[in-house]
Structures are given as structure tokens and as C-alpha cells.
């Protein structure tokens, strides 16, 4: 698949926003909301997730063993196991099974075309099984309603679990009425479903072979587990006398007891149901009798698992035949890949898609590769189809990390996206316009990185220069020709307000008012009036706080001092967040080491590192695990705090909120936390601080503001970003005061609401009024 150009991509996204976005949003956000409810109602959720993950880790670790085990088990049951290297191998095998089965038993049904009914298998989408079978003269009918709609419409899935969620009921009705021309036009969901059921039942009863996927395969008993709501997977598996189950090798788990946590969690994560309607555990060939609908007068129990002569004579030996096809198709290589291996823990529940705000807006067709879509798709596509397929949509992950809490097996999906982005960067071609970003890309990153990426990935250097030349730089960035150049070369949409740089950085401001010594004197004065809390703070001036939004930095300093805490605001290195968003891991890695080195002594001296920008804190608390030695990571993580979390801790330990700007007890404030901050469970402390200080905060539940760092600046994503932002804006617009923790969130809201949206700390700072 060739990569689209920026404007082609913009057009495609615009088109999807108009056509499929609405239906996808309705479905995916409803599943997401139910997931929250069900997760909340599950007492042992965290234990369940940890258990599920550890089972998967262990299973992938000993996968070759499990393949041997399942082969023995299935063969002992009388079935066959085939490990297919790739798509072609798997397809040829299945076609072969169908042919030999129909040769041996004759073709069921009325015509002379061998027929197959299918259920529940994303894996067969991955290998394009239908096309392959049809090329062999075999008729294939999908029996999952969603899949069947796609088959009739000649469309592709847009979601792992709800493949047709991008098509509305009206569109399905139109499609069916045109295709099947029923006596009475179909209209309601009920009518459509009945029609589909009757139509599909004809196919199921006459099929020669039933094909299913498998959600899990229990190795030591050879048990295929199918998790469904409709019931057709069972019909496909047990109605025809031959069943082929196709599953990626990663679906193997060791024993029956390992299945329990997955049965418990998969529906919760997928649709928010406590459990699915049907959890089918088949250790085929099963004992269920084969029902021969061509011999209607035959008692069903006359065939069955036993060989029956009469049945044999009628061409139906009554014996069940079972084949388990385990698909490699790149998975064994993924297993060897330290970064992509986690992808194999995925149980394909789709929760990552449902929690993804960009997915809600453009759906899987904007957000998918050749087969898989949504958050984890980058990992899957990179593994099974290659980097190009993953690159196509990798950009749509803003790294907001909301999927991290959704994933039942705790996969760090944003990290996989970052890794793939990094690899995509390294395989690209260098472009023109080098002069603009010359000197930005560190030597560590190979060529091939686009200018936009280099620009945003080195935003600290850019901001420093811009601040030094402000207000000239601010004036320049407002000038049309400059905006045109920025758009052409860096892809920065000209409709977007650019940050306006302060001439005096936060660090300089702090120095000019006397630095750490003066701060200590101020804190001591405050301390003499109230409870003594013996802490000292190093405030981390991230790029935005330092050069763009110095107000929130100043508010943080004044707040801490007034609570008796001396502050220092040193000139610290970038956190690496910007580089990570661009997939420049080597740069981020180096920046992480520098930042750690720069604060190590403070930490050793017992000082706390306080961070204002949540995305930088998230880098330190999440991604640094991958970038620093374990001990350094732990040390930095456990001594660094988000500003409001820190203030909350001070108040809990006796600091007096009266020193701050307090409300009258029920002053309404709309609060938008920040996606990464929420993933770190840091929304609650801010809410608690606001409450303690006399405000009545109401939090937004939109997953993300849609801006997420540099994402919203990019021309191809401008409309998408605004659409996502609108959802947030409509939630908060009624409130007299709106506060947001993240810079991007604040920017996005300020644009949409056309008013000031300060950081909560600006509301709380002594004598601080937000406006």
C-alpha cells in the first residue's frame, strides 16, 4: 500500500469524518462507556488484568512447547493440527480440506459447489481466506451478522469486534433491499436480523465445512474457545461434520484453568458486558451428533460421533472431522522482537479502539492497515503485513495513552506505536528544505525523518530560539507568507493559532527575582505562619511552561512558596516527550539520561521534583522505564509529582489552604484533566484540591482534547483535531470557569471556547485570578 501524501490523507480523513465517523462514534463510545461501568463494578479487575497478562507472557515464552502439546491433544481427540507459515500456506491447506471432504462425503446441499460457512475470524481476514477459497471454486458465507453485511456490501471490517460498526441501520436496510429485493422492504433492526437469520440458516444447514476462529486455544486439552453473542459460531462449528478452526499461534494458552481470567475479562473489555452470551469450549471432534438436514427423517442421534452404517451409506459417515490451523505469518518473528512481542498478548477485544478518541471520529478505515484497526493495529500490521501497512495510520495515535488503562492485558500500546514510528522514520527518504531544520536532528537519528517530525521532535531548541527573538518571532509566525512556508515545509496548519513565546522564560524570571535563596526566604516567612512541612522542590520548567505559558509556572512557584515550600527552577534538559511523539527514540533516550543526571543530586538531597505539564510527567513515569536503568527510573519516578498532586499532598499533611485563592464552597469549575494524566490516575488529586479550596469541580469525560502535543498542528489532522475538540468543548462550555492541566488541552479549549483556559494552579495560586 503506497503511503498517501499529506493532502490525500487530509481528504481521506475529511471524507471519513462525513461518512463513517458518526456511526462509529455511536457504537464505539457506547461500548467504551459500558466498559467503564463494568470495570468499575469488578472488584478484582486489576488482579484479573495482571493474571491475564502473566498467563500470556508465559504462554508466548514457551510457545513452541505449546504447539507440540496442542498437536498431541488434538490428535489424541482424533483431529489434525497444521501450522501454517503464511497466508498462502494456510489458505491452500483449508482449500485442500474442503476439497477432500467434499470428495469423500459428496457435496451437501442442492448445487454442486462446495460450500463453507464462517464465523468469528479476524485471522481469516488477515490471510484473505475468502478470496482464496472462492478462487478454488468454493462458496463462502459469513454468518456473523456484521461480517455478512460486509460480505454483501463488498466492504472491509473497521473494528476488531464490531466489523460493520461504520454502517448505519438505514444503510444496511438499503443494501439488503437492493440486493435481495424482499417482498416487503426491510426496515427495523428486528426485520433485518430475522431476514439475515433465515437466509444464513439455509447456508449453515447445507454447508460442507464450518470455519471458525478461536479466541483462545487450550493446549493441553486441545480446546477451542469461541466467545460470541450471536450463537452462530457454535452452529458453524457443530452443524457441518467438518470444522476448521483457524487461529494465530499466539492464541495458545497452557491449561483450562488459564482460561478462566480471560473468560472473565474479555466481554468486559470488549463491550462492557459482564460475560458474553456464549463462551463455547469445544474440544473437537465433539460428541454432538452431526445433523444431516438432507436426511430429515433420520433421528439426529443416529449419526453422532459413532460411525453409523446407515449414515455412511447415505454419504454422511457421521464422523466428525476437525482441523486446527495455527497461523504463524510473522508471529514467531514478533516473538523474537523485544518491542513487538507484547502485541502477541493481545486478546483482540477492541477496547483500545473504543477508548481512542481519534478512532471514534474516523473509525477503523481511517485508522487501520490492511486488516487490523485501532490502537494495537500498528503492532499487528507491523508484525503480519510489514512496516508500510503500519505506517499508513501510525500517525493517528496521538500517544494520549487512554488505551493503556483499557487494555485487559496491560499492553503499552502507545509505546508500540512509538517504536513503529521510530522504525518508519528510519526507513524513509530524506526530503528537501533541509535549511529549515538543519541542526535540529541530532546525529543519533538517521536521515529519513520528515521535517515536521524533526521540527516537533526538537521543539525545545525551536522554543528557545523563538523566545530569544520574541516578540519578532511571534510577529513573524503571524505573517501569511511565513504561515504558508510553515505549512508547506513542516505541515503546520495555517488555521491553527501558534503558541506565542514569552521574551522572559520562567527560568529567567525565577532568577531575576532572586532564585532559590529568595524563594527560601519567602517560604520561611510563610512557614512561620503555619504548619511546618520540611520539603524542598525542584520545579521542572518544561518547554511550554518555560517559554510559552510562564504564568502557570509562576503560579506554581507562588503556590508552593505560600505553603512554605522553597522552590528552585533550574534550567533543565528536555524530558524527551516531544521526541517520543515523533518516534525519535534515540533522541528521547539521550534526553532522559540528561534529565536524570541533572536532577539526581537534588533527589539525593531529598528534594522533590514537581512537574506541571502532564505529558512530561507521563514521560518520566511511564516511558522512562524503557529509557533508563531500572534503579534510576524508580528513583526519578518515585520522587516526581504532578503539581496539583503535590499540593494535595501538602494540604493532606497540614498545609493551610487559606494561603491560596479559595472559592466560596460551591463555585462551579469545569475541569479537563489531561489524557496522560488520567492514565496515571492523577485526575483525582486535582479535583480534591479544587474541592478543598472551595470550588465545585465538574470533570469532563471526553477521552482526549484531540490536540495531543503536535498532533493538532498538523495540516492533515486539523479537522479531526477540531472535531474531537468540539466534543470536549461542548461538555465544558456552560461553566463560568474552565481549567485544564495540559498545555495542548488548554490551547484547544481556548480556541474553541474563545476565552481563557488556565491551569488549575493559576486558579489556586495566592491572589491569582485566572484572567
Amino acid at each position, binding site marked *: 500500500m503506497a503511503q498517501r501524501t499529506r493532502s490525500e490523507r487530509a481528504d481521506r480523513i475529511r471524507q471519513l469524518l462525513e461518512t463513517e465517523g458518526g456511526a462509529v462514534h455511536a457504537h464505539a463510545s457506547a461500548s467504551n462507556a459500558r466498559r467503564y461501568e463494568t470495570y468499575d463494578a469488578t472488584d478484582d479487575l486489576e488482579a484479573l488484568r495482571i493474571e491475564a497478562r502473566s498467563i500470556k507472557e508465559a504462554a508466548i515464552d514457551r510457545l513452541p512447547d505449546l504447539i507440540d502439546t496442542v498437536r498431541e491433544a488434538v490428535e489424541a481427540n482424533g483431529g489434525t493440527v497444521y501450522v501454517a507459515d503464511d497466508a498462502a500456506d494456510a489458505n491452500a491447506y483449508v482449500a485442500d480440506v474442503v476439497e477432500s471432504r467434499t470428495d469423500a462425503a459428496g457435496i451437501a446441499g442442492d448445487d454442486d459447489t462446495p460450500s463453507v460457512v464462517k464465523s468469528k475470524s479476524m485471522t481469516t481476514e488477515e490471510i484473505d481466506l475468502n478470496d482464496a477459497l472462492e478462487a478454488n471454486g468454493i462458496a463462502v458465507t459469513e454468518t456473523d451478522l456484521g461480517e455478512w453485511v460486509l460480505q454483501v456490501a463488498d466492504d472491509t471490517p473497521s473494528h476488531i469486534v464490531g466489523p*460493520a460498526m461504520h454502517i448505519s441501520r*438505514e444503510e444496511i436496510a438499503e443494501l439488503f433491499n437492493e440486493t435481495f429485493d424482499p417482498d416487503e422492504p426491510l426496515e427495523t433492526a428486528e426485520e433485518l436480523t430475522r431476514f*439475515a437469520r433465515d437466509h444464513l440458516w439455509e447456508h449453515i444447514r447445507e454447508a460442507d465445512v464450518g470455519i471458525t476462529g478461536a479466541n483462545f486455544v487450550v493446549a493441553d486439552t486441545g480446546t477451542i474457545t469461541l466467545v460470541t453473542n450471536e450463537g452462530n459460531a457454535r452452529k458453524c462449528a457443530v452443524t457441518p461434520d467438518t470444522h476448521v478452526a483457524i487461529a494465530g499461534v499466539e492464541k495458545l494458552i497452557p491449561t*483450562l484453568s488459564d482460561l478462566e481470567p480471560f473468560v472473565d475479562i474479555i466481554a468486559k473489555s470488549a463491550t462492557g458486558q459482564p460475560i458474553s452470551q456464549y463462551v*463455547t469450549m469445544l474440544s473437537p471432534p465433539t460428541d454432538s451428533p452431526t445433523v444431516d438436514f438432507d436426511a430429515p*427423517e433420520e433421528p*439426529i442421534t443416529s449419526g453422532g460421533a459413532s460411525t453409523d452404517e446407515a449414515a455412511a451409506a447415505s454419504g454422511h459417515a457421521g464422523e466428525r472431522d476437525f482441523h486446527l490451523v495455527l497461523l504463524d505469518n510473522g508471529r514467531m518473528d514478533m516473538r523474537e522482537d523485544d518491542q513487538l512481542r507484547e502485541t502477541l498478548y493481545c486478546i483482540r477485544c477492541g477496547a483500545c479502539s473504543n477508548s481512542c478518541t481519534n478512532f471514534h471520529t474516523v473509525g477503523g478505515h481511517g485508522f487501520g492497515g490492511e486488516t487490523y484497526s485501532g490502537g494495537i493495529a500498528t503492532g499487528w500490521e507491523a508484525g503480519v503485513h510489514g512496516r508500510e501497512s503500519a505506517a499508513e495510520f501510525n500517525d493517528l495515535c496521538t500517544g494520549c495513552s487512554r488505551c493503556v488503562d483499557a487494555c485487559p492485558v496491560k499492553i503499552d500500546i502507545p509505546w508500540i506505536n512509538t517504536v513503529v514510528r521510530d522504525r518508519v522514520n528510519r526507513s524513509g527518504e530524506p526530503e528537501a528544505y533541509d535549511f529549515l531544520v538543519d541542526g535540529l536532528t541530532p546525529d543519533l537519528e538517521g536521515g529519513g525523518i520528515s521535517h515536521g517530525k524533526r521540527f516537533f521532535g526538537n521543539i525545545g531548541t525551536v522554543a528557545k530560539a523563538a523566545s530569544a527573538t520574541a516578540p519578532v518571532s511571534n510577529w513573524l509566525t503571524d505573517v501569511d507568507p511565513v504561515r504558508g512556508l510553515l505549512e508547506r515545509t513542516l505541515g503546520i496548519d495555517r488555521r491553527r493559532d501558534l503558541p506565542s513565546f514569552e521574551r522572559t522564560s520562567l527560568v529567567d524570571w525565577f532568577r531575576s527575582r532572586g532564585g532559590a535563596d529568595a524563594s527560601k526566604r519567602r517560604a520561611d516567612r510563610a512557614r512561620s505562619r503555619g504548619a511546618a512541612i520540611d520539603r524542598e522542590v525542584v520545579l521542572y520548567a518544561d518547554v511550554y511552561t518555560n517559554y510559552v505559558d510562564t504564568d502557570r509556572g509562576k503560579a506554581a512557584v507562588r503556590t508552593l512558596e505560600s505553603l512554605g515550600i522553597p522552590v528552585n527552577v533550574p534550567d533543565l534538559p528536555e524530558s524527551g516527550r516531544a521526541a517520543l511523539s515523533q518516534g525519535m527514540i534515540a533522541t528521547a533516550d539521550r534526553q532522559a539520561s540528561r534529565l536524570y543526571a541533572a536532577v539526581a543530586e537534588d533527589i539525593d538531597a531529598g528534594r522533590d521534583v514537581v512537574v506541571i505539564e502532564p505529558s512530561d510527567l507521563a514521560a518520566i513515569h511511564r516511558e522512562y522505564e524503557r529509557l533508563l536503568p531500572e534503579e534510576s527510573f524508580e528513583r526519578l519516578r518515585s520522587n516526581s509529582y504532578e503539581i496539583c498532586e503535590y499540593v494535595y499532598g501538602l494540604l493532606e499533611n497540614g498545609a493551610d489552604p487559606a494561603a491560596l485563592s479559595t472559592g466560596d464552597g460551591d463555585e462551579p469549575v469545569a475541569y479537563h484533566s489531561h489524557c496522560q494524566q488520567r492514565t496515571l490516575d492523577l485526575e483525582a488529586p486535582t479535583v480534591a484540591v479544587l474541592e478543598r479550596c472551595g470550588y465545585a469541580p465538574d470533570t469532563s469525560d471526553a477521552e482526549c482534547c484531540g490536540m495531543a502535543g503536535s498532533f493538532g498542528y498538523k495540516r492533515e489532522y486539523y479537522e479531526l483535531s477540531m472535531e474531537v475538540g468540539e466534543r470536549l468543548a461542548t461538555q465544558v462550555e456552560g461553566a463560568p470557569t474552565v481549567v485544564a492541566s495540559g498545555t495542548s488541552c488548554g490551547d484547544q479549549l481556548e480556541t474553541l471556547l474563545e476565552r481563557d483556559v488556565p491551569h488549575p494552579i493559576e486558579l489556586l495560586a495566592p491572589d491569582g485570578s485566572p484572567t
Partner: protein
Amino acid sequence: MTVDTVGRFERALEGLEVGLERVAAADASERIERIVQEPAVGVALPFDGVTLPESITTEPTAAELEAARTGVTPVGFAIAEYGTVAVESTPDGAEPVALYPERHVAVVAESDVMSDLSAGFDRLADGFDAGRDSVVFATGRSATGDMGELVHGVHGPGDVTVIVLEGR
């Protein structure tokens, strides 16, 4: 304890719009007869003193199975926590009888109602050890949202009743 478990089961089923009837073994046959819609097919009940009513065809032909409006089967056990019944794949056709007709009447002994999934998995493991290794956990009614709204009874039964045999 058992009473609580059945109560929990009943509440879970209520949420799924599945009826639960508690029946003494001696009255079971008559009660089943009242619940089913004919034509009905069934699988012989393995509970002492409990027989299927005469009107229910056991060992149905393919045509009878297809025409049936109700299927009556025993289930190995149930899980109160989720309102789940465990239908086993048996040579006498419990699986198709439970699956194809629009209505499924599942008969379970009170002592086989397990409290939660974990206890259910213990029972499942016992069954596997004893050689019953194909089981369906059926919870509520077949459902789909793929046509734009939630519709029940798409491929599996759209109407389920559970009969709990008491005092055994």
C-alpha cells in the same frame, strides 16, 4: 447458602430477561409441559424421579429439530454470578437441541448451581477430567447489535427459561 446462591442466580437471570422457576422434582414434568411451546424437542433428563412430559420428542429427527419451537435440555451446572448455564456436547444432542429452537428450557439441579465463575471453572475441570470436554457457557439470550439496535434470538434462542430442581 444454596438458597442464597439460587437467589443470586435468579437476580442475574432477571437482568438478562431470563425466567427462573424453582420446581420440586415431582412437579417438574408438569411444569415443563406448561412452559414449552410446541412442537418441542428434548434430551432425556438425568435426574432421579424427573421425566420429560410425553409431548416432548426425544431423539428427534433432523426435520423435527428444525421445526421445533422449544428445546428442553438438562445442563451440567450453572453459575449464579453471571446467570450462566453450562450446556454440554453430548451424543444425545443437548447442544443442537439447546441451540436451534427459538426457546430453550434449561433444567438444572439446585445442587449444581455454583456461586461464581471460579466455582464454575472447578466444575468444568472436573467434567474435563471425566471426559466431557466440550461445553458451552450460555448466558442469557442470543443477541446482536449489528443491525443498529439490540435484537435477540439471532442465531441462538431468543427466549430462555431456567428450571431449578429443588429438594434433591
